[in-house]
């Protein structure tokens, strides 16, 4: 597998390896047909659909009168912002957590 430049391979006694393939699986053959998400056009189409849904959802926020229990909920696009910012913070913080807690896969083995 290719390592991200920001995450160099972990130092370990032995190079981590994927476990062998189980008896019910095999590797892909040489002349396999193209699947639906192999086509870049389909992936791009799906993403464009997602962006469109996002636009519609924010537009609805301006049209629909939401009943709210707390003043903050009343801020336009409060929920979309909370979802987007929340997940961004979560992922970036988790990257930081990696620096703190990540160890080689055999950390607990034979020690």
């Amino acid at each position, binding site marked *: 597998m290719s*390592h*991200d430049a920001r*995450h160099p391979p*972990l130092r370990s006694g032995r190079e*981590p390896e*994927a*476990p062998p*393939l*189980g008896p*019910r*699986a*095999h*590797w*892909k*053959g040489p002349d396999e047909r193209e*699947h639906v*998400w*192999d086509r870049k056009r389909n992936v791009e189409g799906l*993403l464009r659909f*997602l*962006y469109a*849904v996002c636009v519609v*959802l*924010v537009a*609805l*926020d301006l049209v*629909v009168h*939401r*009943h*709210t*229990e*707390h003043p903050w*909920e009343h801020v336009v*696009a409060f*929920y*979309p912002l*909370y*979802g*987007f*910012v*929340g*997940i*961004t913070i*979560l*992922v*970036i*913080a*988790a*990257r930081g*957590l*990696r620096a*703190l*807690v*990540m*160890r*080689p*896969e055999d*950390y*607990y083995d034979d*020690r």
Partner: protein
Amino acid sequence: MTGSLPPFAVYFAGALLVALTRGTLRKAILLAIPVVGALLLLRLEPGTTLHVELMGYALTPLRVDRLSLLFGWLFQLAAFIGNLYALHLGKDEHPGIQHTAAVLYAGSALGAVFAGDMITLFVFWEGLALTSVFLIWARDTERSLKAGFRYLVVNVVSGVVLLSGALIRAYETGSIAFDHIGLDGSIGAWLILIAFGIKAGFPLLHSWLVDAYPEGTPSGTVFLSAFTTKVAVYALARSFAGTELLIYVGVVMTCFPIFYAVIENDLRRVLSYSMINQIGFMVTGIGLGSALALNGAVAHAFADVIFKGLLFMSMGAVLYMTGRSKGSDLGGLYKTMPFTATLCIVGAASISAFPLFSAFVTKSMIMSAALEQGHIWIWLPLLFASAGVLEHAGIKIPYFAFFAHDSGIRTKEPPRNMLVAMTIAAALCIGIGVFPKPLYSLLPYAAEYWPYDVTHVLTQTQILVFGILAVVVLIRTGIYPPELRAVNLDADWSYRWLGTRLVRGVRSVVGAADRRVRNAVLGTVRGGLRALAAGHGPQGLLSRTWPTGSMVLWVAILLGVSLFLYL
């Protein structure tokens, strides 16, 4: 009604039959047990109790009310789906042990939720640990053997703490009833709370769960995910409803595991962290303690067993078919397992609480209760944790297993029984989401709630869709952390790394001191021996051998002297 049969009896008797039979007959019995159990449950009316006198204690092995009945139904359902999912087990997978252990495990869970006193609860509490550990050991790897032992120790300790607390309370109050306890400052109540907390995965007491569950067999982990922690949630709802401390404990439980889930590679371990997150919502609801919050907590437990079971089943199917369960080793499986991928996405949508899926109609009760009671600072982190669920369970699980980078692994759909079990679970996820009324009518407390209004549907859809957008942006910009083969340190570090080193350190210090003391003592003893040897040794004055002739000479001299003196 007297003469009612406690639901666990069906399972314990059934387990005996499962152990004694083979082949088709065993499969039929495995599917029949939950059906018979459910039929018996239909006959149990709220208010039914069964008392037994044992060793001077009045035990209550059966206490039926709306709360225990809800979990009773849930566990019959979970046992049926789990048994169906495990039906195919082959000769090399210890089918006898796994099937028998699973049925005994489900029976213990039923025994615990219908227990009316602490002693009965303790017996089934330990039963949960002793039976379920075989579902981990049956994986038959060195890793699972060790993880199983750690799991067993922690869970048995939980039972010992429970019994200690119960005995202290019995001494203080004279009652062994398993009812509302609450934190009244008594050490007994605290011990009972800690015992429940260990099995519920409270922060810092949680790591047995993320350590052991991913090491279970593909089907064993499905059972594990259904019973132990939900029995703990039931026990907390029964004994500690409205305990304010639980609000904060629950919020911590919803928030800290999601960071681990983002960076964890083993997808079944991601789901284990996700379990703690979901239980966190339930614990918060129990702490809030209003009728709506408590209904939300137990309804969410009901929905969670099904959608989390579905997710564990889909990852179990991937593990069973490919021999792998790590995000870094998988990808592109939608090409050969499209049906499994679809079912997994249903589970992912359910746990993420998309409208029309199950968590939407259950988790929202807890969220609404938090706002209603004015806990804005509880509600905000809960909302953050809800978005986090979408990231790790809603997107990460299906994405890295079935899509993402094509690993080149080709396989086929899992055995039919697995597919049918997953389909039933998926249908229930959607069924509960679309028609929440039947589940609501089973809830134990009186509270009016209806999840489908424009505001709730819109806001929930907004937060989820923009969460997806954030993940897309983070992946496309390369900020999203890649799946790496690694372990992430957690609370179990304290006993797996620090503990072993402490023991080793103590052993080396004590060993050295012991050696020194022994050497000193040996030195003294040797000195004494040497002194003794100087006198009594082979060369010593007192042990020298003298020639017989000299003895005769001396005797002759003595005789001569005495003769001379007489004369």
